C-alpha cells in the first residue's frame, strides 16, 4: 500500500488479517495520512483509534519516511528513506496516495503567513504556536470548517471562515448530508464548537495585504469588498488528488481522477486505487474504498461486495461535495499580471501570456520546473487555463542523485571529497 492514510490503512489491515505479507509505505514520518497524523493518541477520535490500533496489532510492515519515487520495472517500486533506497517487489498494489490542497494565485498569496488551511492545522497540531493569533480561513470546502474547529481548539482567534461557494449550493449539499447520519453528527458537532466564528458564503479573498508578512486580507462577495486584519490567512480551494504515481504506472485517469472499477481496480492489472485519488470524498469514503481494495486483493470479492451499498452512499455524498463546492469562475481572474503563479521559479501571470499549453509554459517560462515539481502551480494552471499536465517522469518527488543511481558499491573510494553545500 502506498499511503498510510485512512484508505491505505484500511486496505492494509484487511489484507494482513487475511495472512498476506503486507507493507505500507508513506513519505510522512507519521501514520494516519492527512487527517490523523500528528494527533496525540489520547485525543484521537474513535474511528482513528480503531484503525490505528488495528494496524499496530496486525503484521503489516510499516515504512514511514519512505517516498516512492520511481518504478524502474513492472511490479517494482523504489522508495527513498533517510537511510537509503528501498526496493519493493509487489504482487498486488494499492495506491492510496491521497490529495493535496489547491492553491490559487491572487495578489499577496506568497506573503509569509498565507498558507493552506490543512497545512496550518497540521503545523498547529505538531506544536506551532497559534494561540491568540488572528486567523482568517478562506477558500472552499468542508476542510475549512474542520480547520476552524481545530485551530480554535489550539487557542487561535478565528475571526472568519470565508467560503467561496454560495449559500444555496451549500444548503443543497447540507440537505443531502441528512442522508449521511454520521457526517451530519460530525457537522453539528463541529458547528456547535465553532459558534462565534462567522461562516460567510459566496465570498473569497482578492488580496492579502502586508509588506514582509500578511497583515490583513481583502475579501469580496462580488459587489462589495472589505478588509479583515489577520496574523495568518489560511487559504485553500479544496483538494486535488495526488495522481503522479498512478500516472507513472500507466493507470487511466478520467475527469481528473483515477478510473477504477467496482473492485477499486485501475486499468493496470493488480493495481488498486482507493481514497482521494478516485474522488475527493473524505475519510469515511477512503476507509470503505480501502477495505474493498483489501478484500479484492486477498481474493475475497464477496466480502468486498458487502461494502458496495455503503460505498454507494458515500459516493453520493462525494458527488454532492463536488457540486456544492464547485469553484466559481471569478477565481480565475484574481491574479493580476504581476502576481506570481509559480513561486519556485518566480514566474508571474504576465509571463504566461504567450503560452498555449502546460508544456509550452514549462519550456518558455520554467513554470512548474522548480522543487515542487509543478504540484502547486500545475494544479492552479489546470484550473485557470485548463492546461493538463499528464506527463509524469521519475523522480516523483525530489530525491538525492544517489537514489537514482542504483547500486553504487562499485564507485571508487574518494578521499577529501568536497561537500557541495545545500541550495542558497
Amino acid at each position, binding site marked *: 500500500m502506498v499511503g498510510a492514510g485512512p484508505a491505505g490503512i484500511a486496505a492494509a489491515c484487511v489484507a494482513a488479517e487475511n495472512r498476506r505479507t503486507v507493507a505500507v509505505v508513506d513519505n510522512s514520518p507519521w501514520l494516519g495520512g492527512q487527517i490523523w497524523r500528528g494527533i496525540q493518541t489520547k485525543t484521537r477520535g474513535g474511528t482513528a483509534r480503531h484503525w490505528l490500533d488495528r494496524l499496530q496489532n496486525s503484521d503489516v510492515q510499516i515504512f514511514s519516511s519512505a517516498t516512492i519515487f*520511481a518504478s*524502474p*520495472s513492472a511490479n517494482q517500486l523504489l522508495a527513498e528513506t533517510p537511510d537509503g533506497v528501498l526496493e519493493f517487489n509487489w504482487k498486488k498494489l494499492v495506491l492510496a496516495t491521497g490529495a493535496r490542497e489547491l492553491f490559487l494565485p491572487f495578489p499577496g498569496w506568497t506573503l509569509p503567513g498565507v498558507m493552506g488551511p490543512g497545512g496550518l492545522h497540521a503545523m498547529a497540531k505538531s506544536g506551532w504556536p497559534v494561540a491568540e493569533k488572528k486567523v482568517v480561513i478562506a477558500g472552499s470546502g468542508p476542510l475549512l470548517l474542520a480547520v476552524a474547529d481545530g485551530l480554535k481548539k489550539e487557542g487561535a482567534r478565528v475571526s472568519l471562515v470565508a467560503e467561496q461557494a454560495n449559500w444555496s449550493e451549500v444548503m443543497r449539499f447540507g440537505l443531502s448530508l441528512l442522508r449521511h447520519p454520521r457526517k451530519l453528527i460530525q457537522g453539528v458537532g463541529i458547528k456547535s464548537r465553532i459558534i462565534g466564528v462567522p461562516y460567510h458564503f459566496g465570498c473569497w479573498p482578492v488580496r492579502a495585504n502586508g509588506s514582509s508578512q500578511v497583515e490583513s486580507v481583502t475579501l469580496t462577495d462580488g459587489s462589495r469588498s472589505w478588509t479583515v486584519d489577520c496574523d495568518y490567512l489560511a487559504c485553500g480551494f479544496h483538494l486535488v488528488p495526488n495522481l503522479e504515481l498512478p500516472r507513472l504506472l500507466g493507470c487511466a485517469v478520467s475527469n481528473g481522477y483515477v478510473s477504477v472499477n467496482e473492485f477499486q481496480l485501475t486499468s493496470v492489472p493488480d493495481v488498486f486505487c482507493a481514497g482521494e485519488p478516485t474522488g475527493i470524498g473524505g475519510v469515511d469514503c477512503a476507509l470503505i474504498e480501502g477495505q474493498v481494495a483489501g478484500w479484492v486483493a486477498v481474493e475475497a470479492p464477496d466480502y468486498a461486495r458487502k461494502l458496495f451499498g455503503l460505498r454507494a452512499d458515500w459516493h453520493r455524498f462525494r458527488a454532492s461535495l463536488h457540486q456544492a463546492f464547485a469553484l466559481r469562475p471569478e477565481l480565475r481572474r484574481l491574479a493580476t499580471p504581476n502576481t506570481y503563479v509559480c513561486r519556485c*521559479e518566480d514566474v508571474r501571470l504576465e509571463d504566461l501570456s504567450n503560452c*498555449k499549453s502546460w508544456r509550452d509554459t514549462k*519550456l*518558455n517560462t*520554467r513554470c512548474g*520546473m*522548480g*522543487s515542487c*515539481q509543478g504540484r502547486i502551480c500545475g494544479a492552479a494552471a489546470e484550473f485557470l487555463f485548463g492546461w493538463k499536465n499528464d506527463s509524469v*517522469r*521519475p*523522480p516523483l518527488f*525530489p*530525491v*538525492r*542523485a*544517489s*537514489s*537514482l*543511481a*542504483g*547500486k*553504487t558499491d*562499485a*564507485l*571508487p573510494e*574518494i*578521499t*577529501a*571529497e*568536497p*561537500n*557541495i*553545500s*545545500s*541550495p*542558497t
Partner: protein
Amino acid sequence: MGHIVVMDDSEAQFALTRYSRRLWHELRPDLPASAEYDQCGTLWVAADEQEMAEVRRKEKYYNQRGVRAEVLDARAVAAAEPYLRRNLAGGLRVVDDGVIYPPCAARYLIESAIAWKAQLRTGADVRALLREGGVVMADGSRFSAGIVVNAAGPWSPALIPGLPVRKRKGHLVITDRYPGQIHHQIIELGYLKSAHSVGTDSVAFNVQCRKTGQILIGSSRQYNEEGTEINHEILERMLQRAFEYMPGLAKLTVTRCWTGHRAATPDKLPLIGPVPDNEKIWLATGHEGLGITTSLATGKLLTDLLLERPTEISAEPYAPARLLQTNESAPEPCLTA
C-alpha cells in the same frame, strides 16, 4: 543541454561548429535574457596520461585554427572546478564556448523570423511531402510551396523514408539550485570514445550549471529506444559515471529527469541542402548532439545555398547527396497521407 561547443571529430565538424559558435557570439547582444547565454567555456577533463596526450593534440589543433584553448594541469583543474575528484591528469579549457537555454533561444529565433514576415503554424502536423513542392497536413489539407525544408530532426525520416537518420536517445538529470558551485561545462575526454562507439549504448560524464544554479547531469546515447520514458538502467550508469568524476553530485537533490532524441547520421555530419533529384525538397537535419550549436550556421548555409550566394564555409561536406547517392536508392518523397 544547450552547450555551444567547437568540436573536432573531423575538419568538417570543426568548420561548422566554429562558424556557428561565431554566429552565436554575434547574436549575443540581441538575445533576450531568458536565453541565458553564458560564455562559461568548456573544460575537457583528462583522467590519465593517454587522455592528456589527446588534450595536447587538441590544444594545438584549436590554437592553430584560431580557437582559444589552454592546457590545465591537475592542480589548475582542481582550482577551476573544486568539486571534480582529485586524481585527474589535467584538462583543456576552451575559453569561448558557452551554454544557452535552448527553448528561449529557439523562441527568439522564431519571433525574429516572424518579424521578417514568416508565418508560424503550430500544432500543424505534416504527413507527407509533395514531389511538386508543398506538404500534406494531417487533416488532408495541402500547402504548396516552391521549396520545402525537412528540418524535423529525429522525425525527419518519417517524411522521407529511407533517409539515413536514426534516433539516438539521451537522458538528462536536473538538480535543485546550487548556484556558484560549477563554473564550466565539464566533459570527460572519454566522451570521445563513448560518443564514437556507434551501435552500443554509452554514457559519459557531462555537467552544466545553468544561470539559475540548476545543474544538468548527462549524458547517455542509445539507439533503438523510440519512447521518451526514462530507462533506469542507462540512467544509473550515467549517474555512476558522473559520480566517478564528481562524487559530491551524489548528494544533490534531483528534481527532474528528461529524455530527448538526437538525429544521428552514419558519418556524424548533418544533412544540409537539397535532396538529389528533387530541387524542391531540402534537408536541414541529422545534427546529432550538436544541433543547438550548429543551428545558426545551418540556417546561414541553407539561406546562401537557396539564394545561390557564396557560402562562408564549404557546404560540400554536409550535402545530402553524399549519403543519398544512387538514383535507385534515392529516397522517394512520401506521397501517401
